[in-house]
């Protein structure tokens, strides 16, 4: 069933329709084979870039689409409903541009942002480390000032687009002052000393390369530091607020795809003389799936609308990410159940959706961390 979307302008409607058409024609038919072969669809993402989808939320002044988040996120959802890897790629790229776009100086933005959001380039966001995942402030990657540059040493982990990105937004320690000792750097892919591990063998999103990023004496010009020295952790957390609503939208699209597949199957699969959707056990499961998808969509849009009005949205982003990804896990699990035996085979896409949903409860802050963010907000309210 097509999703009935509410969008603010006729142009946003045309954009959503265009994205749906591209996703149906170019993404959906290619997804299963590329995931099976662990092949990243760089050319398709480049095509999306030329269409303008890699700069949608950013300012027109730099070549962006100046679209509100409630439109941008629905674009991500449309992409995810056909191919989660591609939607995630667009979301992570947007996250990688976020530090420069929001904390870069006028000069820095003018110099680098147009190329970064112009569609040809791809970004990566380097925060996690092997021993600093949820506790990101415990990172040990160092950036030591040396004249007009910084020298970066350390290892970043779980980096989407590792090895294929054109630029890396890297967080590194410039002092030992805990979370206040972290700074943000824009590192070009061709920097000497930047190397990558092999792609991780993952359970899902296999077409999306995730690697270790090694920084071995990587010299970065001081003018590539984004924001003040020591301001990096705040930048990272603000960027993650934006990233989390992106993941919520991607998870919603994935869940919508699972619901559509399960409902279509249940309408035509007959047992005991009628379509299985007419058996209450299956029909009610599908109804709960539909409710979960719509609840997820409402939550990410609520967070987006706060953001679009310039209101704080950290708690709402955490709630949206938590609920949308937990719901996606439940909905995709139920989709496998509705399809029964064939749902467990790779001849149908729902087992892939199920595998892809799992990581969404883990990345961009585990769902335990989302609860922590929400609980801290509740705690502060009492002060």
């Amino acid at each position, binding site marked *: 069933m097509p999703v009935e979307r509410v969008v603010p302008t006729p*142009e946003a409607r*045309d*954009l959503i329709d265009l994205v749906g058409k591209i996703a149906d024609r170019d993404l959906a038919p290619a997804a299963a084979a590329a995931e099976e072969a662990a092949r990243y669809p760089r050319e398709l993402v480049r095509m999306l870039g030329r269409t*303008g989808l890699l700069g949608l939320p950013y300012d027109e002044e730099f070549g962006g689409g100046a679209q509100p988040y409630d439109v941008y996120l629905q674009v991500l959802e449309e992409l995810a409903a056909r191919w989660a890897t591609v939607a995630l790629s667009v979301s992570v790229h947007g996250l990688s541009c976020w530090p420069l776009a929001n904390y870069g100086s006028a000069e820095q933005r003018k110099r680098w942002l147009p190329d970064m959001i112009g569609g040809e380039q791809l970004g990566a966001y380097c925060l996690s480390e092997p021993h600093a995942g949820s506790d990101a402030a415990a990172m040990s990657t160092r950036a030591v000032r040396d004249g007009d540059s910084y020298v970066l040493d350390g290892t970043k982990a779980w980096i989407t687009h590792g090895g294929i990105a054109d630029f890396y937004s890297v967080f590194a320690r410039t002092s030992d002052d805990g979370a206040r000792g972290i700074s943000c750097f824009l590192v070009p892919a061709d920097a000497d000393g930047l190397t990558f591990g092999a792609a991780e063998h993952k359970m899902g999103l296999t077409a999306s390369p995730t690697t270790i990023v090694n920084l071995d004496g990587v010299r970065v010009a001081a003018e590539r530091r984004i924001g003040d020295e020591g301001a990096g952790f705040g930048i990272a957390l603000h960027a993650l607020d934006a990233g989390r609503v992106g993941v919520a939208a991607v998870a919603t699209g994935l869940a919508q795809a699972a619901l559509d597949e399960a409902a279509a199957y249940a309408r035509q699969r007959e047992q005991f003389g009628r379509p299985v959707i007419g058996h209450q056990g299956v029909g009610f499961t599908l109804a709960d799936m539909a409710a979960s998808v719509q609840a997820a969509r409402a939550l990410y849009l609520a967070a987006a609308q706060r953001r679009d009005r310039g209101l704080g949205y950290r708690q709402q982003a955490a709630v949206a990410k938590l609920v949308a990804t937990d719901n996606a896990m439940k909905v995709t699990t139920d989709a496998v159940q509705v399809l029964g035996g064939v749902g467990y085979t790779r001849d149908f896409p729902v087992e892939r959706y199920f595998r892809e949903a799992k990581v969404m409860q883990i990345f961009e802050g585990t769902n335990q961390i989302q609860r922590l963010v929400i609980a801290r907000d509740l705690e502060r309210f009492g002060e």
Partner: protein
Amino acid sequence: MKIVALVKHVPDATAERTFDDADHTTDRTGVDGLLSELDEYAIESALTVADGGDAEVVALTMGPSGAADAIKKALQMGADSGVHISDDALHGSDAPATARVLAAALRRIGDVDLVLTGMASTDGGMSVVPAMLAEHLDLAHVGFVGEFSVDDGTVRCRRDGDTASESVEAALPAIVSVTDQINEPRYPSFKGIMAAKKKPVETLSLADLDIDPSTVGLAAATSVVDEVTKRPERTQGEIVTDEGDGGTRLVEYLAAQKFV
């Protein structure tokens, strides 16, 4: 150089298409409309020529108010301006009337070097309007073109037939209809969507074109649809269960249907 791409707003071919109960014309209200996909190849051809040099691309359509969507899509793809002929008296016009009105609009646009059309509309599917236009305007027409180039006042075309390809040249101005093999129409970009809002679209009535309304429309049409019968629902096919003789029975079936 001025290129005009003819575009048509048609009922979505993937939807259930019907005819109006009262006058048996195409039902354009009960079904979503869109730019005829075959016209996208004409727009892409025009934009390709424009990309390679200094050319202006105008999208021209005739149709009710919804047809503005076909113009908008062409503008989003990159056309520079649009002309929309819209007049209630045009309802039910046949191909000769359509060609006459489009010819008048092309004369009014003026200084047109190249008219590009699709190979057919996806609703009427007659493929005759480009040739009729050429007669009205006394221009050369090259149809079913799979490749063309424009150079030095000449359009050089390759027309692909079932058994051979022909090379055909025509002096500009000319009318060229292109097939769905000629290119891969581009998607609009988001910038294109935003830019289309600001591009000029001129709406013309029959009065603007000096055409007597009694000479067009359903009453003036040279053919009349008396009756429309819905195609019968597809019946369930015959299922052959293979009991060792499946191949033979399939051939028997195909022979009975005179396929083999």
